[in-house]
């Protein structure tokens, strides 16, 4: 799946001693997926996960998280439609008062299923497209799914769901932003997310093949701004900037353990959907209640507050604004999760980001670059 770009408005207070509620709950119901997207943030080792949580486990997680104040629910994966208890999970979540978003590739979303999910209380659907063209959509996902996704988009509207169209942008499709937006308009999408790839999981493996040039990015931003001016607030348009091109880090997850809680298919609880890579012990809902996990577990407390920070973050006046950026990115690039996110130009490791961006400026020779496709065989081979 794509990276859920969550927004909370207005911004909640900076992390403090008091632990607030996990307002955003993301359940990754399964790692199984019919698509094999090269930019997926799922761990490259996903094929080692075999035992998924049972229906009862998921229902208990919903009850416990809701009691803590969780309210925005994402059902994701992998492809959540591959769980045949999805309707049961949605019904329980609806009864508890969650606002429920299904994050899907669309594969498996037929008429009876979409009607049953509506009846169960599903609030909206986020449908992913890989591109505006059949050729690139199907190449990037390593499937033949473009026509199917187009039919599903129509079905979503027919059944009265608000539709969020999500397209992950990168070097190979970012020049098609105008066409992607026209496609979204034809499909009457209510929200469009143009989410530049964040480099974790499979995307990290494929980073140098996916990072756009600065000229590509600026063109895409210009096209998006023109489109936004034309359609007004008929369609809400979000352009998630690729942080490699910034000089200050994103306030990732509003600080770990602040508002986000992710449960992976095997029950591991994470303070961010990419955090499995961090060298920390994360608790599992099979062994502990969500309340203890969220408030007391060492894995969730480790990066709360700012006692963990090193320089230049520790004495930085902006530390309460960006929380030092992304712990996963610091770990991936520098080997130490407590370092400043190297996206920040105050980081002594910032050159690691600018070098990657500089490489993206070099001319390419290959027509179709060699990429790692997210499938079980590759997962076993590289992890």
């Amino acid at each position, binding site marked *: 799946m794509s990276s859920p770009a969550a927004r909370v408005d207005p911004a909640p207070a900076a992390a403090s001693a008091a632990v607030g509620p996990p307002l955003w709950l993301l359940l990754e119901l399964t790692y199984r997926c019919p698509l094999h997207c090269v930019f997926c943030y799922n761990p490259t080792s996903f094929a080692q996960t075999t035992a998924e949580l049972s229906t009862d486990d998921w229902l208990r997680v919903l009850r416990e998280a809701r009691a803590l104040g969780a309210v925005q629910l994402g059902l994701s994966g992998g492809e959540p439609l591959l769980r045949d208890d999805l309707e049961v999970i949605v019904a329980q979540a609806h009864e508890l008062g969650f606002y429920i978003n299904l994050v899907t590739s669309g594969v498996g979303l037929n008429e009876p299923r979409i009607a049953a999910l509506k009846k169960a209380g599903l609030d909206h659907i986020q449908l992913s497209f890989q591109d505006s063209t059949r050729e690139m959509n199907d190449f990037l996902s390593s499937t033949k799914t473009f026509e199917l996704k187009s039919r599903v988009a129509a079905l979503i509207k027919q059944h009265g769901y608000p539709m969020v169209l999500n397209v992950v942008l990168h070097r190979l499709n970012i020049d098609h932003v105008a066409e992607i937006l026209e496609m979204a308009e034809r499909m009457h999408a209510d929200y469009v997310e143009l989410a530049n790839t964040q480099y974790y999981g499979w995307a990290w493996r494929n980073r140098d093949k996916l990072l756009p040039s600065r000229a590509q990015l600026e063109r895409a931003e210009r096209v998006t701004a023109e489109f936004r001016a034309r359609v007004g*607030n008929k369609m809400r348009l979000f352009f998630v900037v690729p942080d490699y091109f910034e000089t200050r880090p994103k306030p990732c997850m509003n600080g770990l353990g602040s508002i986000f809680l992710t449960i992976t298919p095997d029950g591991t609880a994470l303070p961010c959907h990419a955090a499995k890579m961090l060298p920390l012990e994360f608790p599992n809902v099979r062994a502990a209640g969500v309340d203890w996990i969220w408030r007391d577990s060492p894995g969730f407390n480790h990066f709360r507050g700012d006692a963990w920070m090193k320089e230049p973050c520790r004495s930085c006046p902006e530390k309460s604004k960006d929380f030092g950026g992304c712990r996963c990115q610091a770990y991936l690039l520098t080997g130490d999760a407590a370092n400043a996110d190297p996206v920040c130009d105050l980081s002594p490791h910032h050159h690691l980001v600018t070098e990657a961006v500089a490489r993206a400026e070099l001319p390419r020779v290959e027509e179709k670059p060699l990429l790692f496709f997210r499938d079980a065989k590759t997962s076993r081979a590289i992890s």
Partner: protein
Amino acid sequence: MSATSAEPEIAASARPTIGRGFRLQWEPAQQTHVLLYPEGMVKLNLSAGEIMKRCDGARTVREIVADLEASFGAADLARDVTAFMVFAVSKNWLVIGE
């Protein structure tokens, strides 16, 4: 988004209702009303919550203002309430039926 200055005023006879795809609910954990929508959530302050929860598509702006004034022992709320509604309409939180 168009400039709010270009938005028309909202008539006292209009019947505002929560916009499609938005859900207003009380959150006990946060002790506040929140507005939920795809991929987002707005925490409403007390007055915004009190206004929004009265926007049921049946009551007119005039009736909502009168109810608020009675509930909070206040007077002359029409301007503030309408100003909030104009803002909420610009965000699609409210839609106006006649």
